[in-house]
């Protein structure tokens, strides 16, 4: 079992690859379909994983990953725990703008706000952007896919004058001042 490294593979021309990690494997399938069909100019590859580390057998066929998206469904306790465990297998190089978190189910009534708060703390401590998505409706999936695609194009170097690191610096998750005291 190896860690996922950002520069172990040579990037291909006009292609971008995103890795969607979700323990429940529901939302990632919907997202993947939309992402693949939405982009026509460049070839976008989507890898779906349940958790990290990724199987060693696929090492050869796996392309250079430009963006890792951790999808957290707030309805499930285990969703967050699984992501926390998976983070250990991500190379520090990825955190320079090639990781983002996607939260679903935040609108659900029964979900306690503590869960969302801990996700925000996690994203803040890793200096990563945190996106929110609605997974039940088609428009929600489309919007989330469009956002991810835009971020992916930047991190894959397909957008002129922008890099993943600069974008991430601008969009990274921040906490309000009273909570931020815990980290600094």
């Amino acid at each position: 079992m190896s860690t996922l490294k950002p520069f172990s593979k040579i990037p291909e021309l006009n292609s971008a690859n995103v890795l969607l990690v979700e323990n429940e494997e529901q939302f990632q399938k919907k997202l993947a379909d939309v992402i693949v069909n939405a982009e026509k100019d460049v070839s976008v590859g989507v890898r779906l994983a349940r958790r990290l580390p990724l199987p060693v057998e696929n090492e050869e066929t796996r392309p250079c990953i430009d963006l890792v998206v951790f999808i957290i469904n707030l309805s499930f306790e285990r969703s967050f725990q699984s992501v926390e465990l998976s983070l250990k297998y991500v190379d520090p190089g990825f955190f320079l703008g090639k990781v983002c978190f996607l939260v679903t189910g935040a609108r659900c009534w029964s979900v306690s706000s503590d869960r969302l708060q801990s996700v925000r703390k996690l994203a803040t401590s890793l200096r990563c952007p945190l996106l929110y998505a609605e997974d039940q409706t088609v428009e929600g999936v489309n919007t989330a896919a469009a956002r991810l695609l835009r971020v992916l194009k930047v991190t894959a170097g397909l957008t002129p004058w922008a890099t993943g690191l600069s974008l991430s610096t601008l969009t990274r998750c921040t906490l309000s001042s009273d909570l931020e005291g815990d980290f600094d």
Partner: protein
Amino acid sequence: MDETTRTVLQRVVRKVPATRLREVLRTWGRVPARQLDLLDFSTSKFVLFEDVRSLCEVNSNRLTLKHVCELEMIYFIGNPAQGVWRACHLTEPDDDVMTVELRQFKEQFKARLTELISNVSVKIKKHDDEAVWIRIAWGDHFHRPNQLKPTYVVHHLQTPYVFVYNLSTKHKPLLYQALVLATRHGSMKDSHLSGKSLTSIRDFLMRSYQQAFPTKYARPLQEKNTAPTNPNIEKEHAEQEEKRLQLACEAFGEGNVPRLETATYKLETRYRGSGNETLNNREEPFRALIKFSSANLLVSLNHCVSAGMAETPVTPLLSSITQKGKNYFVITDKGSGNSSQSMVQKK
């Protein structure tokens, strides 16, 4: 027509949906078909009952309770999914168990039951699919049999399975004893299986549903009915997903599985967690009742496992539903298997 017959007839007419009533009455055969066609089944049940009653009185001048019970049975055999059916198991068969035939069984059963309890009315009818249906109305020394709350028993001759509907604990030993003697078995015990659909329980117990068996090799491609996927989408854990699906099918069957509604676990185990002193050092066991319920439990559990919500390999607590053919379990403290319920996060 006496009072009881009247009440039972009224009850049947009320219970049977108006759309089915014509068919049921026709099968019964006490009222000529021509007169049945003239009946208006769209009126209220009260008027309908009066019509049916007058028709019965005109055509068969001595309509007895027996006939009305038969009518009720005809409806019940056609629509057995009305309440909770329990399965029982006959054990310790005698040597001549295979020689039991219907006529003999009828006589024996009636004789044995009337020996045990004086006021009881029994009606036995054979259905097309080789099942013997028994309707028992129980009474006691001072009361006549209560025809309004009958017990139904379904037994397939030469099999060890008995299905019981609406049996009170008071009458349980009587019925068991009569059945054991009539079918030439040594004893009879509860199978701890219950459900709303009789056919489902029967299929489940006799294992007549599609099952998957462990194989060393992956299944041939044509069996997997997967939708075509985009070549740009690659699953990293495809093998594991396949394996989970296989394990789920092995544990809970695949395709059209029998409908079970509930699975109940009664825990009488000791708490073995850390950090909770009040629960940890208790003398008596920690009692709890865990109930899973769903419209179709086996499908739900299958989905739980194949979607990865429950851990694989499937815990024996869940897989023993199909393996042992039970849906009520008592788990006592023998060391293994406690607290495994936490494995299933949500159902």
